[in-house]
């Protein structure tokens, strides 16, 4: 039972690197939230601040409304009742699987018998019931990761921290373990903070995603919100593929991309503002048709003519780069592969106003 709350949290490395730049984040009990962002965005620093391995320069971290870190003082990691899964697994090579899992219970008021029960049950849950006597050196990477999970969960922590837990696994295993982590979270419902740079991992495992860049939070939301309603250009470009177009909002619902091109926008995006900004259009939200096709209800849609610069047939989809007069960059378009347009084709593009999402330029 734990809530976690970060308030104006600041961590400066050296004299001016603001690794975590006054961020605010509230995590209700039982939520799994992931910190997603490129390397150097401050996500791991945030995690280590929460764990108590780092001391903030200012701001606060509260756990169940009690301050555990502040600019003035920090509760040491061992008294926070948290667990952590590390990138390197950090399974102790000199202890057996059983001893690894049982370790944290030694610091809690648990009888020997009870501890034994808990460890055995947990080994069952991570599907390693018969491997308690093995040493980590005798296990595969995936099995070591399971030991790390069991070890972190057996103490029933208030908060579970995961630091890129899957980045050392090979691709197949990584996919399997994503679902495993989500399954275990559904079973134990522990408030969790999950650091990753892999968007698919974040989308599969988490309830909400917190996108970070340059030490700041860009957006917090569900996978769907992040993907469909990005608020900043960074979010739109980091999660999935998109077309970012610079321009100005002239009147509500109308976006002037320059070069005589105007886009109709829905009132979908939260990032829209008057004046200069960007719009984001996902490639698969752009319909692609033969030159001159009559479009029903063309008045309420954005209809553009262009030429295919490159067409790639991918089997399950077709990817295009389409040059549209008036736009500096060609548009990326994803179409139906059964109706493929080779390079050089003249095409007509159709975009619904709701697919034109106004986004802010990111700070920094």
């Amino acid at each position, binding site marked *: *039972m*734990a809530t976690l709350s970060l308030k104006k949290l600041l961590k400066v490395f050296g004299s001016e690197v603001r690794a975590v730049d006054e961020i605010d984040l509230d995590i209700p009990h039982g939520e799994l939230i992931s910190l997603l962002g490129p390397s150097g965005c401050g996500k791991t620093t945030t995690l280590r601040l929460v*764990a*108590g*391995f780092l*001391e903030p320069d200012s701001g606060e971290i509260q*756990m*169940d409304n*009690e*301050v*555990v870190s*502040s600019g*003035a*003082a*920090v*509760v*040491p*990691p*061992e*008294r*926070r*009742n*948290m*667990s*952590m899964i*590390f*990138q*390197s697994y*950090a399974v*102790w*090579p*000199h202890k057996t699987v059983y001893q690894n899992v049982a*370790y*944290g219970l*030694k*610091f*809690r*008021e*648990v009888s020997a018998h009870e501890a034994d029960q808990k460890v055995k049950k947990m080994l069952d849950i991570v599907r390693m019931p018969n491997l308690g006597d093995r040493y980590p050196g005798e296990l595969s990477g995936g099995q070591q990761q399971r030991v790390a999970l069991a*070890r*972190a969960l057996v*103490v*029933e922590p*208030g908060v579970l*921290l995961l630091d890129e837990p899957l980045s050392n696994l090979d691709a197949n295993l990584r996919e399997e373990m994503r679902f495993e982590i989500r399954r275990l979270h559904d079973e134990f419902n522990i408030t969790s903070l999950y650091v990753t740079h892999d968007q698919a991992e974040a989308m599969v495992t988490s309830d909400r995603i917190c996108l970070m860049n340059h030490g700041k939070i860009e957006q917090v939301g569900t996978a769907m919100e992040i993907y469909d309603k990005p608020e900043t250009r960074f979010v739109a470009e980091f999660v999935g593929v998109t077309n970012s177009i610079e321009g100005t909002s002239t009147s509500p619902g109308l976006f002037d991309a320059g070069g005589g091109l105007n886009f109709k926008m829905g009132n979908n995006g939260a990032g829209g503002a008057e004046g200069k900004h960007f719009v984001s259009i996902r490639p698969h939200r752009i319909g692609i048709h033969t030159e001159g096709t009559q479009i029903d209800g063309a008045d309420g849609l954005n209809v553009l003519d262009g030429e295919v610069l490159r067409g790639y047939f991918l089997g399950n989809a077709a990817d295009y780069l389409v040059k549209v007069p008036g736009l500096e960059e060609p548009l990326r378009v994803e179409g139906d592969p059964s109706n493929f347009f080779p390079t050089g084709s003249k095409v007509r593009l159709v975009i619904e106003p709701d697919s034109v999402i106004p986004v802010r330029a990111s700070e920094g």
Partner: protein
Amino acid sequence: MTQAVPPIGGLGSTGSASWFRRVDFTSAVWVIVLVLLVLLVVLPIYFLFQESFLRDIDDVWQFSFGNYVEAFSDPIYYGPIATTFVISLFAGVFSLIIGAGMAWCVSRTDMPYTGLVRNSVLAAFVTPPFLGAIAWILLAGPRAGWLNVLFRWITGLSQDFSLFNIFSLPGVIFAITLYTFPLVFIVVLAGLNNISSDIEDAANIAGGGTFSTMINVTLPLVLPALFAGLILAVLEAMILFGIPAILAIPAGYHTMTTQLRQFMVSEDDMLGVAGAYAMPMLIAAIWLIWMRGKALGRRGYATVGGKGGVRRPQKLGSWRYPVFFLCLFPVICTLGLPYVALSATSIMKTLGGGFVWSNLTFEHYIFMINNDGVRESFFNTVGLALMAATGAATVASIASYIVQRKLVRGHSFMGFMATAPIGIPGIVLAVGLFAAYTKQPFVLYGTLWILFLAYLTKYLPLAYQTSNAALTSIHPELEECSRILGANRLQVFRDVTIPLFKAGLIASWILVFMPSLRELSASILLWTTDTKVISVVIIDLYEENLFGPISAIAVTLLVITLLAIAAGFRLVGKDFMKAG
């Protein structure tokens, strides 16, 4: 979730957390270790400089360059500098040729028994050079040396003719080379083993022949290692005391190390002159170490690195066995012949008595056990080695832990201090320690403590490098994981760090213990009648020509050393000497 968990410690319940955090025990340990390192390294060097610039002029000690003028104006004094230069250069070059050649054969050819050759070269480190020199007197002394006797017996030449004369400049160079070429061997072997055949294949595919590949690709890649090996050999040859003391002095030469001792045992107070005379050695040593770092650092092993490459040996064809015997020759000269000579001598009544039953005796061993002086020096030596090993392993592991975990600001300075003694030749260190600890307030001269400090300082870098290597393999997350599951700093040490670090700790302990048993170049300036060590006793016995007892002691030392190595292998596993 009914489990009784420890209460989450809000700040209200800790109160003093902030104060405690900033003055926790790591700070105290760090300050103590840093002060210790500074005392160990800086103090002797400071007093060395001070003494070298102080001179008694009209009964007043004052600043002067007089010591330097005296030390470098008399041919008797600057002659040894030239001798040392010649010896170091020749020993260095010969070591490079032998060491690099053997390394290439072991690493790159299909020579048989490469493991045997490699291990015997490594085993050469077990022998103290001064014992090797004494053994070679038994073998190649001009009159009674067994090789000369054998030669005269075969050829029928007269008593006056001798094939070998170990008491000569070439003799000294020969003996030194025997104990410096393994240094080159190790460094070059490591360099060669790191180059995978892929790189050479790439050159072959690009059109280079075998020879051209070797010259254009392999050679430049191992060049840093060759250079580093040469530097190590030259440095070692320069700072050796035992071999020149035993072989060069009878031949009428002094080297810088033996001349330094002359100053220190002089009737007059020549400590200042000794200090001045030590400076060129100190500067040369530091320069050589710096050059080595530069050679290895610039192109480094990064290019050479890359795992997984398979190395295909060069086919030697019918040369396989001749090459093997050629490689065996230096090993025989370094280990085989000397230990045969010493073992035989230790059980022979007289040297000239031949290998017959009537000449067999155990009196030398009995002498060794019954002689109070010898027995006492054995106790001193073993006691000192135990203390030095424990001290160095402790200081080194704490220092390397602080450096690796970056626990404090300025941690790299600590690492520098722990490795700095590499650049201080043992005998120079001894002059500095003598200068520092013969006057108030720290009078340690005449006690075992000054020898302890000498050993501790001299072997600290060895222990530090070993600890460092062991700590690198312990990922910080292993400790952090223990921490977050509920262990405090001390419990983390008990449960994770120490169990994982144990092997490295034992390895560095043994790697200091072994050379401490036979340290000579610092001990020779710091011993007093009550604090003799076994190496000094051997030099005394040599001056009395008592080869029998020396051999008995040598065999005993070898047995102790081998036991230590066996213990090391048992406790740590076969990799334990690698880190050093």
